[in-house]
């Protein structure tokens, strides 16, 4: 477990000296700030929207769809390309510790980025009377963290498969997009569409946690998908040894 922590903290610090991370952070805040401003602007102009934390979180989730593959793409692919994976795999570290450490580092970094977005609900809370719905805010943020952990785990898994970070980026993005839109198939009545609907990453989020409903199946869905991706990731690292 200590190895996980050592790898995670190296990775976490690494983000703050790499340009990718700053680009991701800057674009998130830029887009989010713009959308926030427009929302507030129209609210003040007297349109009917009733602002709550969701005017921040809705767009944030969409941005994260693109941001997480960018954050995870180099995690293992780069190590593999640079030959440093050989260093980690010949150090007394288990394969899963490498994967979980990488994931945890990325997770920590994204949490820092997400933490700063609290500033928008805070402003909103000051501007509205009697303030925004705190329950929804907490539930939606909890959902966001769960969603984030799953998306990052998938990103790490894909990064473990490739030697080229760009390839890892696009494949991870494609997989996340499929999981994103697969929910739209779930509107039918058949078993297939039900399965598709329950697989959907964002439907789980938008339909429940986003609305302030914390349900166990949703939490389990995110947690188990995260674990599954990390287990597969470890398997891939191990299978690399056998080639």
């Amino acid at each position, binding site marked *: 477990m200590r*190895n996980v922590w*050592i*790898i995670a903290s*190296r990775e976490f610090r*690494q983000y703050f*000296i*790499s340009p990718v991370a700053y680009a991701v952070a800057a674009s998130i805040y830029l887009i989010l700030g713009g959308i926030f401003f427009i929302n507030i602007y129209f609210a003040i102009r007297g349109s009917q929207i009733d602002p709550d934390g969701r005017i921040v979180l809705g767009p944030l989730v969409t941005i994260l769809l693109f941001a997480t593959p960018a954050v995870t793409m180099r995690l293992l692919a780069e190590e593999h390309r*640079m*030959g*440093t*994976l*050989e*260093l*980690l*795999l*010949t*150090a*007394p*570290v*288990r394969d899963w510790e490498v994967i979980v450490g990488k994931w945890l580092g990325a997770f920590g970094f994204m949490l820092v980025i997400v933490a700063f977005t609290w500033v928008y609900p805070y402003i909103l809370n000051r501007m509205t009377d009697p303030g925004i719905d705190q329950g929804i805010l907490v539930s939606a943020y909890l959902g966001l963290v769960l969603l984030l952990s799953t998306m990052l785990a998938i990103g790490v898994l894909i990064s473990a498969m490739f030697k080229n970070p760009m390839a890892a980026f696009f494949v991870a993005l494609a997989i996340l997009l499929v999981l994103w839109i697969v929910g739209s198939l779930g509107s039918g009545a058949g078993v297939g569409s039900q399965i598709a609907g329950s697989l959907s990453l964002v439907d789980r989020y938008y339909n429940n946690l986003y609305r302030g409903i914390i349900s166990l199946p949703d939490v389990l869905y995110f947690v188990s998908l995260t674990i599954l991706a990390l287990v597969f990731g470890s398997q891939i690292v191990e299978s690399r*040894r*056998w*080639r």
Partner: protein
Amino acid sequence: MTWVLPFLYSDRRGKYAPKEAVKSTYRRQRAVDVLFLRLSVKQVMIQVEGLTKYYGDHPAIVGLTFHAGVGEILGFLGPNGAGKTTTMRILTGYMPPSSGTARVAGYDVVDQSLEVRRRVGYLPETVPLYPEMSVVEYLEFMGSLRRVKKLDERIEAVLEEVSLEERAGSFIGNLSKGLRQRVGLAQALLHEPEVLILDEPTIGLDPAQIIEVRKLIQEIGRSRTVLLSTHILSEAQQVCDRVLIINHGEIVVEDSPGNLQAQLAGAERLIVVTASETAELARLLERLPGVAEVKQGMNEGEVQVTCTAGNDVRPLIARKVVEAGMDLLELRPVGVSLEDIFLQLTREEAAPPVEA
């Protein structure tokens, strides 16, 4: 070794001696003997048996068997693609073999991989460094992964060993190739490993650095086991106690550099240089007893003489040349270099030289 010892003491169990006294004498004696055994018998640190690795259908190494003891520097010599790196990767626990066994410090590389990895320092061919980290940060990272005790002191010591103290704070990305190589070496030495595996450690270094690194390896090799690969033969000759020449995944020969030279040199060869014509000189020398072959040398008046084994014909040649009225300029033996042996051993059915 130790389990045979009790039998050695069966005669000491005297009938009349009190039991306890016998036991304690026995115990003391045994302890001394075990200690003595440990000191005298070289402990085997690397033991490889029938190691084979296939990449798909292509065999990288086939049935390698060798061993290395404490305080031994084993050189792994071979052309590129001979299987040196593959063998090292198996020994460091990076990849498992297709078949065969390898034990490092008594642990199996497949079943007890973590134990092996704890005891091995490894410098891969492409030095694995994080360019955006500083030298110290990098060593701190590796040291904490390897659970090095008193890490700060160790880092200081190891930086001194590879003479990198002045660049401790530099980013690895800004270092020259030679310095990076040394950072890699520092990483391999950091946890004071029992076995050091170095894949072409002097590649990309300038001559002064090469000498330094070789000296360092020799120093380390006194108390540890070092396995190093190289395709520079003089390096193997200088540094290694034992050389293992490997080609197409198989061990071609295994011996000390000195023995190899002696064994493969066979008959002695001499270079004779005179101020006269080559043809004339050759005609004269061919007739001498003990001379097997005379070949033209590089320059006019120079010949290469191959003697039959066990004959020192130098005095005879000197006398005859002078008697024939030629001016003898040079008469020296030529040893076969490790280069020749290497080429001889690794060349597979080379095309016969075409005479122009």
